[in-house]
């Protein structure tokens, strides 16, 4: 056991070691040219190009960032982005952006794309970002997040934003690597990635991984009494997932398939369960397969064609009473086949046209509910649907300072009928260093199968009137100042107006629950960001955002809507070597909860060492998350209550304290 003094000394020595060794005075110009060719460099960081002309304010997290800050899930990656906050209810992770994030909505107002293919299923429209997201972060090349409506290009669910996960090219995997990871809360993960170049010039890769976290016994003060194990949920925070990913690229064709299967214990007694029942669990399984063909038809015409299958299965086990015979199971199945043909057309000078057609056939949208072991079913409904969409986008350069970006998508769906989503962007280069953008966007979210068809007597629910899609209209002004290759900054002001939001309501006549287009809401705010690249390979990025939201009916601030969010990310090579150290700070302001309370604001500090080569083949990474062991909570949705009479509602959901993680990768 080290004493306080030796510990402080070793801490200080470490810091001095890291800060020292930065400058080297010898004059490189004195070296002859043939020697310069042998000098080892630390590569300077670079900003991704061409972001300035996009009709949006994109945030990008690259594979380097993922490593440098020790991100382990898509949720971690999003937490590092400007203006984004993620709540975790110890089962699913809910993304909030620009002050809007509804706990319990399964991110159905956020479109998640894997290499341009939709992950949101056709039942709940769920945009998975936690451990249920089926792709390992090691396979990600970059994540692009576009806040604001994206329906003009992508259709339904692109309501608050679009997250596109671009996986690494098959060509970047050569040879085999084995990874092993261990972390606090008894987490263990093993993974294998292998890549191979075939004789025909094709390139393939395969990745498998298995992770299990036993978790710890979580304490819920709301459930603290002698009959409820004093509020301790024993062994119910376990999280286990298995994943498989394969990719094969040959000339213009890329084939991708993935499988992700996660099982998570539910410690919160959600939806009125018996607290601390070991049977409470959910399972999320994804199966995706896609073929993408990209071909230059001529020098001015590019074709993109894809065929995609996406299967999603959800199984939820709900223990409403301690009775062994009384375990309720919820099963959802979604199978969707999507075809997309798109052209990028530059035949007209100073214009970039994108047009395409998309056809989607949800062949299965089945929801079942039954008691395990019982023969009769409580719910069994299958509501296949189909739809198509046509879209057009034109980027027109007027003079050499103004770009006009117009887009329109027309969606037809069996349930939603016809919907148009227009957008308009004006991009003006004020000076070579300052670009300004004025953006108008619209989006919709079609009511999902749960809202439309999940009707049971036991759940005291009934079918509501025909649900219209939720709508959003937004205005945004962006200014980007990019004076030097190593510095850029941006400011954005936005105003959102949401209408027809779908909520659960109770009919006063029969006391039954049903979904209804009721709510209106609005949000406005400011986002500021600056990023600096140091000559020594260091990167510094900071952002602050302020957002104000209003519920149209009550005039009050929306729930789960912090007024302030701030992020700070700093990383640098360790004494000019491949190893890197990353420090991340995140602040989220206080938030109101749906149950009428409030969770406090909090700051979290994470520290990561990455890319440390122990031998030429063996690489070490280590992270300390929540370094200061800050105790903080996320606001729960309204489904976290137990089976007591009256039900006890969770006021807040406690998050992890300090977590240590170490991972080793061996390549051969």
């Amino acid at each position: 056991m080290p004493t306080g003094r030796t510990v402080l000394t070793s801490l200080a020595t470490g810091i001095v070691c890291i800060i020292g060794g930065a400058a080297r005075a010898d004059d490189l110009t004195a070296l002859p040219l043939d020697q310069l060719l042998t000098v080892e460099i630390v590569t300077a960081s670079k900003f991704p190009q061409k972001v300035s002309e996009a009709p949006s304010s994109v945030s990008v997290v690259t594979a380097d960032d993922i490593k440098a800050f020790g991100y382990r899930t898509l949720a971690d990656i999003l937490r590092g982005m400007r203006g984004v906050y993620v709540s975790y209810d110890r089962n699913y992770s809910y993304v909030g952006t620009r002050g809007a994030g509804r706990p319990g909505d399964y991110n159905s107002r956020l479109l998640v794309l894997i290499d341009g293919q939709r992950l949101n299923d056709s039942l709940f429209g769920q945009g998975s970002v936690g451990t249920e997201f089926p792709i390992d972060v090691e396979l990600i090349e970059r994540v692009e997040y576009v806040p604001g409506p994206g329906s003009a290009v992508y259709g339904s669910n692109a309501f608050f934003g679009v997250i596109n996960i671009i996986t690494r090219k098959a060509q970047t995997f050569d040879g085999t690597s084995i990874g092993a990871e261990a972390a606090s809360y008894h987490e263990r993960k093993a993974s294998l990635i292998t890549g191979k170049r075939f004789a025909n010039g094709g390139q393939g890769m395969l990745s498998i991984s298995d992770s299990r976290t036993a978790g710890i016994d979580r304490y819920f003060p709301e459930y603290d009494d002698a009959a409820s194990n004093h509020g301790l949920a024993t062994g119910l925070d376990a999280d286990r997932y298995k994943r498989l990913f394969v990719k094969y690229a040959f000339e213009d064709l890329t084939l991708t398939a993935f499988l992700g299967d996660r099982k998570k214990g539910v410690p919160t007694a959600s939806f009125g369960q018996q607290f601390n029942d070991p049977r409470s669990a959910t399972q999320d399984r994804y199966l995706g397969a896609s073929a993408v063909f990209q071909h230059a038809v001529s020098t001015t015409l590019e074709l993109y064609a894809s065929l995609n299958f996406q299967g999603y299965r959800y199984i939820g086990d709900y223990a409403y009473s301690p009775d062994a015979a009384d375990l309720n199971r919820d099963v959802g199945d979604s199978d969707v086949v999507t075809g997309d043909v798109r052209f990028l057309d530059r035949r007209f000078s100073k214009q970039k046209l994108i047009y395409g057609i998309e056809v989607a056939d949800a062949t299965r949208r089945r929801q079942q509910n039954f008691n395990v072991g019982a023969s009769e079913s409580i719910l069994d409904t299958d509501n296949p649907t189909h739809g198509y969409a046509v879209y057009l986008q034109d980027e027109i350069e007027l003079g050499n300072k103004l770009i006009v970006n117009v887009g329109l998508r027309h969606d037809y769906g069996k349930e939603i009928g016809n919907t148009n989503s227009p957008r308009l962007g004006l991009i003006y280069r004020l000076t070579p260093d300052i670009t300004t953008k004025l953006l108008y966007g619209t989006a919709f979210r079609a009511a999902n199968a749960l809202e439309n068809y999940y009707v049971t007597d036991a759940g005291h629910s009934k079918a509501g009137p025909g649900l219209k899609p939720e709508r959003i209209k937004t205005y945004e002004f962006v200014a980007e100042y990019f004076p030097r290759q190593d510095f850029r900054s941006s400011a954005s002001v936005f105003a959102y107006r949401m209408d027809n939001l779908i909520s659960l309501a109770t009919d006063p006549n029969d006391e039954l629950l049903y979904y209804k287009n009721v709510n209106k809401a609005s949000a406005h705010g400011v986002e500021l960001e600056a990023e600096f690249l140091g000559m020594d390979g260091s990167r510094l990025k900071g952002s602050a955002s302020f957002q104000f939201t209003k519920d149209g009916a009550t005039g009050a601030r929306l729930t789960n809507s912090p007024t302030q969010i701030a992020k700070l990310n700093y990383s640098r090579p360790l004494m000019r070597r491949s190893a890197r150290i990353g420090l991340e700070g995140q602040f989220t302001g206080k938030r109101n909860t749906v149950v009428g309370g409030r969770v406090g604001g909090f700051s979290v500090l994470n520290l990561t060492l990455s890319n440390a080569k122990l031998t030429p083949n063996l690489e070490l990474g280590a992270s300390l998350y929540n370094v200061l062991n800050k105790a903080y909570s996320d606001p729960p949705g309204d489904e976290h209550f137990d089976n007591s009479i009256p039900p006890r509602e969770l006021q807040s959901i406690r998050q992890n304290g300090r977590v240590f993680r170490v991972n080793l990768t061996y390549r051969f």
Partner: protein
Amino acid sequence: MSRPLFLHASLRRVVRHAPAAGALLALLSASASAQTVATPEYALKAAFIYNFARFTNWGDRPDKSLTLCVLGRDPFGSALDTIDNKEVGPLHIVVKRLREADKAFSSCQIVFIADSEMDNFLLQPEQVRLANGVMTIADKEGAARQGVIVELTTENQRVGFAFNQQSAGRARIEVSSKLLRLARKVY
């Protein structure tokens, strides 16, 4: 509880957490000292550019200056300051940073085309791209193949360069054979 007591408690907490952080930092420094020191990319690239200037025949320049211009967003930071005013035979280097292509190609002898200007550069007519007596340098991948005279390339954490002899010929840039010998690729 009084404030000093509270302070004391939080200090104790820091000390309690320090072993893990200390161990991590010790691990860092251990892994770091096992490896050799590397040089910042653009400090090295500045030295390369200085050498390109030395291995080129600039003829007789009455003003005795050799103007090196960075066109677009400067990726060098302060790295070019190390070669500003440095002597190349009878000439001395003058570093300038410019945003307009026509000005760069009419007033500079060496033009480094930053990433931000590459697309624009390639759209220029040949008499601008290969202006008489102007050595163009870029570090965007494929630059030499696309007609830039010298491309700084990075491979396996080492900097090298590719040379486009055809472009050099048209721009009447005469370099020593040693430079050509050390190029990773000659077009």
